[in-house]
Each structure stands twice: as C-alpha cells, then as structure tokens.
C-alpha cells in the first residue's frame, strides 16, 4: 500500500473522529444539567461511530461517486467517507431547512442522491435497497457497485439472509460489510450470534466471505479492495466482517452499565494506534498530523457553523413532501 493511500486513510479517520467529537459536544451542550433527549440544538437519538472509522475509511476509499452506499442507524462515518456534503449533512442533523432532507429526516435518515448515499434506522433493512441500486447499475451496464453496511447485530435479522441469497443468486455487484463492534446496544455478540464469525455465513450463499480482525484500516482497505474489484468485474457479491470498536455508548445517554469490556476500550482506539504506526513508518510527521487535525477541525466547524446559521424549517410546511 502506498504512503499516499495510508495518509489518506488516516486523514479520513481523523475527519470522521473530529466530526463525531463535534456532534458529541453540540449534542450534549444544551442538554444539561439533566439529560433531556428531546432538548437542545440536536435532539433525538444519537448513534456516534467513534472507533469504527477504519471500516468506513477502508471500504469507501475504493468507491466512486456513482457507487451506492446504504448505512444503518450509525451512519456518519460511512456518509463522510462516501463523500456526502458535510454542510448539508450537518444541517440535516441539526434539523435545518438546508439539510439533506430539509430537516425532515434527521441523523438516521440521511439521503444524498449526489453520492448515492442513504441510511435507515431499522436494523438490517438497509440491505435490500442496496441490492436494488446494484440491480439498476448492472442493468444500465455501468460498473458501479453498491455497498451495504450493517452491525453484527443486524446479521441475525431475517433480511440479512434474504438479501445475501438474492444478491448471490442474481450475481449483483454488491458488497455486504458487517461492522462487528461486539455489541448490539447491551446485547453482546455471544448472546446474539450462534457462531463466531459472520463472514462464515457467506458459505450459506456460495459467495466469498472474509473477516478482518483488529480494526485494522489497512487490512480493511485491502480486503474491501478485492471485494469491490470482484463486484465491478461482474463477479458478484462478497460478505465482509470487520472486527471494530464501539468507543462510546450505543447512543448518547447510554449509561453502558452492562458493558464488561469498558476498561480495555480506550486502549483499543484505532486512531492513536494508526497514528503511531504511520509516525513510525514516517508516513506522517508531528507536523503533518497537526495539519490533518487542523484541516479536519476547520472543515467540521465550518459545517457546524453552516448548520447553525441555516434556517429552521417553517412549521406550516410540516405536512409537505409526502408525495412528489
């Protein structure tokens, strides 16, 4: 892997983390002293993706604007890595008229036709639409692909099975990416999944499956690259599982009292680790790191500023956009 790519992966991970930290800050800012989920600049459930940057960065590095991506309830890292406009995405999360969905959708419902990005709050149900996008691409003779992200909890939903079988059967250019962060809210993987490796489930559909351990962005990049290349070449779907990390709570406000792995969590943060690695390999310098962080911070704060300055939707238009 060339240094440019590695630096780019790092840059993307930092951008995502910077973004999530900013949302974290603004989400909680005005929910004090007592946490009130519906209050503040950013109300509602908030599922942040800190710790899972390697998945989004490593996979989406292979994607083009015309490729499609569907993400689950925890979508920001994927959206950012896919290139969704940060300002309009942030405005959406802030419920503003200039948001991707004019404030109608919110953080779990980001739709960006420009980058073919979408997400859904119903576990697993983002998979079938990705099949349809892949179907449309294939039929148009394009070499675009679709990537569907889902948590390891989602891999036990019926729709996972149906989607993999249909994708395999119709040889669709789609890549399934399972983000195994060990938890589905409070339910640990061992209490939800009968086997240790979801990639093994590829066998049930006659497609390749691969698991990447250790939240390793370069391994994700390499593995995803093969899967994307297969799909582009018309060779059909692949199932990937990445062992990643939920650095924070399931959603903001999650007390995480159930969580028995909390002690080791900070030590597993993929960003300092990769940073150290790239420093050691002289891909990065202290200076370039500082610059990456500053640029990330500037972009993120600009997006947040854009959101905050954007108009709030007009209540009298609340019942619009039901039908085209």
């Amino acid at each position, binding site marked *: 892997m060339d240094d440019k790519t590695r630096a780019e992966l790092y840059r993307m991970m930092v951008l995502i983390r910077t973004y999530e930290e900013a949302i974290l800050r603004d989400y909680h800012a005005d929910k004090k002293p007592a946490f009130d989920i519906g209050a503040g600049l950013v109300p509602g459930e908030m599922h942040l993706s800190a710790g899972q940057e390697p998945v989004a960065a490593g996979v989406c590095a292979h994607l083009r604007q015309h490729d499609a991506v569907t993400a689950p309830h925890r979508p920001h890292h994927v959206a950012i890595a896919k290139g969704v406009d940060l300002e309009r995405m942030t405005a959406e999360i802030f419920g503003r008229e200039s948001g991707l969905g004019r404030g109608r959708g919110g953080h779990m419902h980001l739709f960006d*036709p420009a980058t073919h990005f979408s997400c859904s709050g119903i576990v697993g149900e983002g998979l079938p639409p990705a099949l349809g996008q892949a179907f*449309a691409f294939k039929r148009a003779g394009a070499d675009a692909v679709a990537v569907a992200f889902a948590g390891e909890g989602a891999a036990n939903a*019926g*729709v996972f099975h149906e989607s993999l079988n249909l994708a395999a059967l119709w040889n669709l250019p789609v890549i399934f990416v399972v983000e195994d962060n060990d938890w589905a809210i409070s339910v640990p993987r061992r209490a939800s999944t009968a086997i240790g490796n979801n990639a093994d489930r590829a066998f049930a559909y006659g497609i390749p499956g691969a698991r990447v351990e250790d939240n390793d962005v370069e391994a994700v990049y390499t593995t995803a690259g093969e899967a994307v290349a297969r799909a582009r070449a018309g060779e059909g779907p692949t199932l990937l599982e990445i062992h990643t990390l939920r650095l924070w709570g399931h959603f903001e406000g999650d007390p995480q009292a159930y969580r028995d792995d909390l002690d080791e969590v900070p030590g597993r943060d993929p960003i300092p680790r990769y940073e150290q690695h790239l420093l050691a390999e002289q891909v990065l310098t202290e200076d370039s790191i500082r610059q990456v962080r500053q640029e990330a911070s500037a972009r993120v704060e600009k997006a947040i500023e854009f959101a905050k300055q954007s108009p709030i939707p007009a209540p009298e238009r609340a019942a619009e956009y039901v039908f085209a």
Partner: protein
Amino acid sequence: MSVTQTPPAPTTSRRLTTAKAIVEGIAQEMERDPGVVVIGEDVGAYGGIFSSTAGLLDRFGPDRVMDTPISESAFIGLGTGAAVEGMRPIVELMFADFFGVCMDQIYNHMAKIHFESGGHVTVPMVLMTAAGGGYSDGAQHSQCLWGTFAHLPGMKVVVPSNPADAKGLMISAIRDDNPVVYMFHKGAMGLPWMAKNPRSVGPVPEEAYETPIGRAAVAREGADVTIVTLSLSVQHALDVAEDMIGEGVDVEVVDLRSLVPLDRETVLTSVAKTGRLIVVDEDYRSYGVSGEIAAIVAEQDPALLRAPVQRVAVPDVPLPYARVLEDAVLPNRERIRAAVRRLTQA
C-alpha cells in the same frame, strides 16, 4: 408525469377481463419505458398466480420479468433501490396477506424515503398485490387489508373494481413518481377458475390511457341512498342497486377507486344529495375504510345524514374457511341489500 391526461371514454366494444386489462397496461408501459420491470414470485413462466403478469415473460424476456425466491423483504426493497436509481419496477406481493413479512420495506422505506429526503429522492414504484376472499382460502389468504396500507403515509393506494379502471390505474401507477400500492381483488379478475361477476369482464380501450389516481367514480347515480365502496364490492353494490329498482329505491354507488389520495368531495356530494350512507368494505370493520368514510361525513357536517350510517364489512373476525361461515362475514349482496332496506325503510 403523464402521457394521456384525460382517460378516453371506453367507447370500445372490445371486452377484457380485469386480469387481461392489467397485463395490457403493464405491457404497454414496458414497451414505452425500458425502466419498467416486473419482479415477484411466479410472475414469469406462471404468469402470476392470479394472471396479473400472464404472457409478459414470453414477450419481454427474463431480463424484465423476474421470478424471485420467497424473500419478500429482499425483493421489495430491491424494487425500492432500483426505483431510487430511476427505474420503474412493478413488484408483486403475491397476496396482500403476506405484508407481515415485508411491511418494513413497504411502509418504513418505500413509503418514507421521499419525505425523509425532503423531497430530493423519488421512489416511482408499483407494489401490486392480490386481495380478498370468497373462495374459502382461509384466514391467511383472504384478507383485503387495504385499510392497513391506506393508514400509513407515503404510499398511494388504488383499488380498481373493473377492467377499464384496472388498466388505467395500472398505467397511472407506473407513471406516478410516487410509490403506488395496486391492490386487485382476486374475485374481480375474471379468472376462469373462480366464480365471478360478469362485471369482471368489460370494455377496455386498446390504447394506453391513465385513470387519475385520487378521483372516485360515481358508478351509478341514484337519489335515495349512497353506497360508498371499492373493488369487488362495487360489483355487488351495483347488482343490489339494480335489484332495488324493483323496490322503488334509487341507489347511488360511489366507487372509491383510490384510497390514498381519497376523493372526499365525491363522497360528500353524494351524501349531501341522498342523506343516507352505507359503506361497504370487505376489509375488517373497525379502524379502517368504513370508519374513515363515515368520519369524513361526521367531520364535514353530521346534519347531512338523515339516518345513521350503515357499515357492511367483515365484523372483526379472521376470515373463516367453511363456506357458510365465510359467506356470513363477507359483505355479500344479501347483507348490502339488508342495509339498504334498513336505511330506506327506517
């Protein structure tokens, strides 16, 4: 978006069954628009269990008419994704009764994406499905359930009662930029292997035309009592209306044709004229279509009603298998007739 704005009066003498009219509508749109594909269980070689896709595979080939595994969530969601990318899929859910295995894709995705995207994404898709009982198919294969679909926002719901509307509504549904749930009644398809009302065969213009979604039809004008109904029950209501002439009762029959959007005006105009309302619905009675129709009158002006509203619907019981039991709960001619008599003799 539309090609023919006004539906031509069906002056044609050519008569088709509802099933053939649907197929003709689909085929004409497939000719016109390569983005129209047909996806579902047994839509290919079988031609649809209720003949809604008969002959399309031969004509358009397996790339445009695709049989699926029994994976309704996957293939309906596939339709949604393809529609988002600009295709116009027609996806068949074999029986409306099966909505429970795939409703999330239907009501939380297909129906909501346009709204959640603030209007930036459109989902021009048709979800076609078979509804209704009357042939002893039991509690899991005889339901209408249109009230369930119509209650949930973001999808149009159409319910044709005759061949001409069936074709026109199919063409309108395909051309509509919104998801349209197209619910045909098995008993109104004119199938050779099921008892049928002669009204399931009728004149159908040959050219492509649209029947506007959201406009009810006054299927029969009358002065004394209004029957508001839909789908197969329109045929029963028309039969009863003809019978009642002998009893000196002049029945108006309103065929809703579309539940979403609902044509309130036509209902209210009719009730304002007759002062008497019977709602006939083959769906479950409570919390559904019959309640909604009564409610729009009660919230417009209860004084329009010279007598209490009558509802003839399935009395909140699963559809029984045995013929006599099923017949007892369906809104058949006898029950409709009795309601008309109750209302006009009271």
